[in-house]
């Protein structure tokens, strides 16, 4: 048996919702990451509700791409498909290119299970999979045998099949087993029987690979070059939670996080609720309006208010965002986008809340918008959102989406000590005089530099003041119906947001060959676009690429950049929302490349299309 070296592999684990595929994928990913591969993952949950066992809608999958170089996406098509039942095979086989590897649990290919998904004969036995390398193995049977001695129920015993499978794959891809063993030991620390059974199944799987002659080869994917540093693997939602937490920490503020559960944003709530140690309070509200309301109240009280949701919940928050804009208090609103409109496809991804983020409020109600572009980048984006919110006393909208929220990649750990602190600069003294020339506090007297207003915490004697949603007089913040004052205040609020461009670095264009076509994206299309651009270049196409992270205010040089290309292509998972904004702002005929499938844009399709474009 030999070890064959590969640059990259895409494995897709697929099974029934109850088969533990997410866990299997996670573990394999962790091992690959710790080993030093670059990784990118794509979990794919069934629709929110549980479908009956063994049916197509019940299939859950997890795709992992690992490589010895810097990769950008979880891959379009898997090299290896692990199918734990007929439904998993049927749902996924069409994505596997001919010649791909299929490992199937033959034990589950019973008449009944086959019938459930409409297979008339067993595909493992007829010739329908001839184009693939198929390994039909009795995975569950072997797992059950491996755990026999522990006296588990049949159900529990069968459950260990995922660990058996993981063991087998660890062997196939030449992985260390220590990480998973440690993981299992810790996870089941207080259920020793389950722990030992899982360990046994895992080891049995590994041993099966090693001893059986079923497999011709082991494969090895080397370490990816990576900037020196300490790394971990991280999902977008966790990184986002960490970014918020770190921001509050660097500002020396307790965080108040108000949320109402919603897919795919709930994990931000779940993550933060674990970190009370860091002075984070999570409030599970009765609805999204209460969630943002309480967060705004906490900001008024001098804490960092944060709220997070997905499209339908963010829609409900719009009225309160208007109040946050009027009261000019720090607030971070996270929108983890999913496929819409309405309930749409809650477990699928999309970028279609951009216009809601920019314009979804009544009146002139501007706020800054930042979009994260990869799972790890959610950390930086969230940290920046906190910084802007506090510095400029403004609600900030942070956009992520289901793809990066649930996907994972290696993250080079920052050193918290090196992150610039955020100064909330609470007001402590009066800053003006009233009509009678007494010293007074003017809550709307702005910092001439940032246009931010002072933030005075309740409890500070002498700075008592009232905020509210009514039009307010410049400076004093008293109710004002003066027409000129209103016009001025509307423009001041806009100017404050526009001025944040000071914080926005110019976009950098990656254009090694002096191309005349530019592809421009924002948010989670970063991975697919970058990968597609590589392919185009590899195929000899000249193409420039840039990615916008600050959607409002956009970078100062953006217009210039757009004008300097013959064609600008903007791939988005919506009907061209950012393209519209760019056209309006810069009067450049940017072309929207729109795919609204609830999936990340296909890198191969995009690469082909871009190649077509640059070659014309």
């Amino acid at each position, binding site marked *: 048996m030999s070890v064959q070296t590969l640059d990259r592999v895409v494995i897709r684990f697929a099974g029934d919702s109850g088969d533990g595929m997410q866990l299997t994928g996670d573990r394999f990913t962790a091992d690959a*990451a710790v080993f*030093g591969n670059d990784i990118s993952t794509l979990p794919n949950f069934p629709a929110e509700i549980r479908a009956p066992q063994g049916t197509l809608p019940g299939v859950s999958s997890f795709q992992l791409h690992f490589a010895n170089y810097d990769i950008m996406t979880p891959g379009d098509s898997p090299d290896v498909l692990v199918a734990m039942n007929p439904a998993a095979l049927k749902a996924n086989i069409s994505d596997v290119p001919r010649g791909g590897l299929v490992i199937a649990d033959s034990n589950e290919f019973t008449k009944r299970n086959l019938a459930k998904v409409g297979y008339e004969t067993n595909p493992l036995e007829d010739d329908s999979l001839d184009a693939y390398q198929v390994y039909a193995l009795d995975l569950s049977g072997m797992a059950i045998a491996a755990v026999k001695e522990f006296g588990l129920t049949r159900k529990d015993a069968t459950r260990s099949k995922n660990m058996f499978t993981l063991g087998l794959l660890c062997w196939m891809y030449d992985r260390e087993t220590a990480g998973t063993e440690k993981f299992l030991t810790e996870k089941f620390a207080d259920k020793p029987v389950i722990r030992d059974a899982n360990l046994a199944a895992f080891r049995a799987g590994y041993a099966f690979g090693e001893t059986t002659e079923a497999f011709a080869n082991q494969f090895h994917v080397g*370490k990816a*070059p*990576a900037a*020196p*540093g*300490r*790394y*971990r*693997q991280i999902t977008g939602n966790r990184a986002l939670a*960490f970014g918020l*937490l*770190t921001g509050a*920490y660097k500002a*020396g503020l*307790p965080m*108040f996080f108000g949320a109402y559960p919603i897919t795919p944003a709930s994990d931000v709530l779940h993550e933060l609720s674990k*970190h*009370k*140690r*860091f*002075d984070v*309070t999570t409030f599970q*509200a*009765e609805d999204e*309006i*209460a969630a943002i*309301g*309480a*967060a705004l*109240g*906490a*900001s*008024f*009280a*001098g*804490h960092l*208010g944060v709220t997070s949701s997905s499209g339908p919940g963010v829609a409900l928050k719009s*009225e309160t965002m208007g*109040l946050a804009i009027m009261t000019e208090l720090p607030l971070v609103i996270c929108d983890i986008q999913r496929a819409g409109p309405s309930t749409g496809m809650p477990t699928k991804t999309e970028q279609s809340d951009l216009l809601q983020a920019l314009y979804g409020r009544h009146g002139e109600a501007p706020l800054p918008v930042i979009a994260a572009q990869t799972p790890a980048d959610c950390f930086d984006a969230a940290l920046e959102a906190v910084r802007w919110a506090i510095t400029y006393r403004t609600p900030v909208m942070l956009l992520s989406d289901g793809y990066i929220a649930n996907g994972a990649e290696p993250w*080079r*750990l920052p*050193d*918290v*000590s090196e992150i610039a602190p955020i100064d909330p600069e609470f007001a402590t003294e009066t800053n003006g005089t*009233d009509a009678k020339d007494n010293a007074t506090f003017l809550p709307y007297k702005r910092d001439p530099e940032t246009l931010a207003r002072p933030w005075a*915490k*309740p*409890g500070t*004697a*002498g700075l*008592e*003041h*009232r*905020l*509210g*949603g*009514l039009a307010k007089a410049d400076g004093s913040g008293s*109710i004002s119906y003066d027409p000129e004052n209103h016009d001025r205040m509307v423009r001041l609020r806009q100017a404050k947001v526009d001025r944040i461009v000071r914080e926005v670095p110019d976009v950098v264009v990656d254009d090694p060959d002096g191309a005349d076509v530019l592809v421009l994206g924002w948010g989670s299309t970063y991975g697919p676009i970058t990968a597609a651009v590589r392919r185009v270049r590899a195929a000899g196409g000249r193409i420039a690429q840039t990615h916008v992270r600050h959607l409002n205010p956009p970078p100062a040089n953006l217009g210039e950049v757009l004008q300097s290309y013959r064609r600008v292509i903007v791939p988005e998972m919506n009907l061209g929302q950012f393209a519209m904004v760019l056209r309006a702002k810069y009067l450049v005929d940017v072309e929207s490349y729109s795919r609204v499938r609830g999936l990340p844009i296909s890198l191969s399709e995009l690469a082909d299309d871009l190649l077509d474009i640059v070659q014309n």
Partner: protein
Amino acid sequence: MTQTSPDQNSPAQTSSAKGLNRVPLAVTPTTRKDYTSDQEVRWCPGCGDYAILAAFQGVLPELGIARENAVVISGIGCSSRLPYYMDTYGMHSIHGRAPAIATGVATARPDLAVFVITGDGDALSIGGNHLIHTMRRNVNLTILLFNNRIYGLTKGQYSPTSEVGKVTKSSPAGSVDAPFNPVSLALGAEATFVARTVDSNRKHLSEVLTAAAEHRGTSLVEIYQNCPIFNDDAFTVLKDRDSAADAIVPLVQGEPIVFGAENQWGIVRTATGGVEVKEVAEVGLENVLVHDAHDPDPTTAFALSRLTDAGVLQRSPIGIFRSVERPAYDDLIREQVETAVGSDPADDAMVNDLLAGSDTWVAAEA
């Protein structure tokens, strides 16, 4: 860099009232004038809001707390203008959301005395959900619900407390909506403190507000408030000298519930579990129900709430229906956080550790 929450550890002396037990006391006593802002008060002449404002401005100094630690949050409505007239921290927020916003304030800051000012439309129509959830959680807030049984600010549409048949601009043929009984609703929503008072009875109003502020958890105070412009006869029976004695049923802790000019009426239990009005002379004072707001079972309080008919008010108990102890949401959640933070706040190393988690690897210099 270390993280601190200075506001939560104020060294000043704090109030001894449960509801305010982490709120610092004023160093020099405050007066009503200290609580008066420089904004001109703008309600219609004769509006009941004036009296409530005055009473509230009178109660705050009595509580002894530092003025800068008082926060008044309102929604939208005539009544919700009140924060502008209070020289405290305050927010005139958006329609119906004051309880939610105040929940954030109260949860963040135990050292603040948080008041919510709201109307029958604001609290019971658009804001009904936040109100009931606040009460079930028992967030430490004092809610002043100005019930004029009409939408005043939008010029007089019927509200969720208007009587059936009310003719307004939006109900020219008479409204068909059965009203809420705010006290019943609060009791059904697990409220720990529910009271009712009247704008025109300054003494009662002040007493009830004081008790409400001193209660820990959510205190809901329904205040009958006259709107002479759009609903001038909503409370005539209760306010008319001749009829008031027979209409207002004062609830006094530990006392038999009697009323009438000569206290000739008493409340007794019915055979079917409710309460009814009887002549004291007929039933004997010893058989009159003795009021106990502290009864852990809210049933009798609920029964008393049903004495109020929802139409043209003919009769209504005032006073504290229920006042029981139950841990406050904000105390509990703060306790979890405070316990987790402990006495030594997180430092860089701890944050670094958190970010790193347990599975890390190192890429060396290439």
